[in-house]
């Protein structure tokens, strides 16, 4: 049973679940990832050093270069893709990026996902239904 259910709009279809990685900041593409490990290598980003493989990425929007979509497609090619994207404000990079990454993506949620979801929560994304189910990680587990 999930603790919280958010309703939003599908950006790209699919169903996936995983542990959430959450930031109120935007997420980049170019110069953001190490393609051997899936680690974030952008020194400017609060996720620096974190690994994105199989995570549900919850973030404000996409920032930076038009190479965003190249990077997110490349993560798929090297089997380091995140499980899904939950984006507060969709933009061209997150839209095309989730299409070429071929991962589920949801936006325009009825609550700010970067407020409601915390890093470590278990998140299930059902993009066609526009549903994000959040199971809070117990305080004791943190």
């Amino acid at each position, binding site marked *: 049973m999930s603790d919280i259910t958010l309703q939003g709009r599908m950006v790209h279809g699919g169903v996936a679940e995983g542990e959430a990685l959450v930031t109120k900041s935007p997420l980049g593409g170019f110069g953001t990832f190490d393609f051997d490990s899936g680690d974030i290598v952008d020194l400017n980003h609060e996720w620096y050093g974190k690994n994105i493989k199989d995570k549900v990425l919850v973030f404000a929007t996409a920032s930076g270069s038009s190479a965003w979509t190249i990077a997110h497609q490349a993560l798929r090619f090297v089997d380091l893709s995140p499980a899904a994207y939950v984006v507060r404000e*969709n933009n061209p990079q997150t839209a095309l990026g989730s299409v070429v990454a071929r991962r589920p993506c949801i936006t325009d949620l009825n609550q700010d996902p970067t407020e409601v979801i915390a890093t470590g929560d278990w998140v299930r994304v059902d993009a066609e239904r526009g549903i994000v189910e959040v199971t809070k990680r117990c305080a004791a587990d943190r």
Partner: protein
Amino acid sequence: MLKLERDEREMLAGDLGPARQRAMALLVKYANALGADRFIDIRNVTIIPGSIPNVEIVRKIVPSMDIDEIASRFMLDSDERVVVDKVKAFTTTNATWRDQAYPELQKGSKAHCDLLQRLAEYCKRIGMIHLATCTPYQVGNLPVRGEHIAWTESSAVAYSNSVIGARTNIEGLHSAFAAAITGKIPNWGMHLDRNRRGKVLVEVAVDMSDLREWSLLGYYVASQVGLNLPIYEHINHLPDLTQLMALCAAGISGGSVVMHHLVGITPEAPTVEAASGGRRPEFELRFAAAERRRTYEWLNRSGKDAVDIVALGCPHCTLESLRQIAELLDGKKISANTKLYLTTNSMIKAMGAIQGYNAVIEKAGGLILQDSCCLELAVDPDNVFATNSGKLGHYAPGATGLKHTWFGTLAECIDAAVTGKWRGELP
């Protein structure tokens, strides 16, 4: 709900061949992802094939290294190999290629250099112009005000929207390629009047005469506004091309500023009211001494003053910058411990040769790279790096692994190249 016109349906059905079918199919997915209701005709594209992943990833996905299959997979996201005849739109290539004269200086060395040369030949084969620049508006791709275009290169997107008044979202490689093939792009975002209005009013309370300030202003505001467009007012200095490029580049690397308004300067901002569409700003910001200093400190991450690399030309060096650099270096020698790299495109470099600027810069020990990008340099991550570009200062750590980066004026960068020491400071 996305509605397709007859020509779009024909392309999607495959009536005009498999390449247009794949391109249209991708655009339909993209339009649905955006929530667009229709497509718009475009005839001007800037595309970024030079940023495809490294040669190991390309070989993993396309072991044959067949160039049409590489383009299909990496540029069109098509699992099926399609052969593109000619692109429909006037299409020019972005930077991030390799200067073929110096393969060892750039990431991926000779193997990646060779792959990108084959990809450049492919681009030419299908009718693209291989401008290889992040500033196409400097050298032959200059859209007109109100024109709908499909551009990659974030700084050029911001320049197009803000300074030229052309209309584009930040396209990616895949959507730009599909747009080049079909002449279509989703009618969404910056293509629509209502999304071009400024929402954040920024009071500019510092002297804006030096290039450095334009990087600082853009970088600071980008960190504050999210996807809202800023309206800059009370700017005390009419910016030149290089300064506008710096503002655009910093605003979209430090955040997502796809368009800004400079009141009394840029075409859609004769007044604050015109720039905002007569609506009250969602919030206001002030860029004064404290914000300026804080931003300067974000971009200056080094405690080491011995500089290994000085990088200029991000976005690609203008003729005016090339002239200034040549004047600053005339009769000087670059420190034996320091490398000076300058990036621009082949057309500006050719003009620099005609003017004698290149000879002066090269005699001093500097290197002018064409078609490439300073972020494509192969560097030792422990090197100390200095630049006059806010964009380069932002991306260098992630793109190259550099941890020690300095940011300052052009004169400070040239001084660092000549003395090998960083002596920049913010007055």
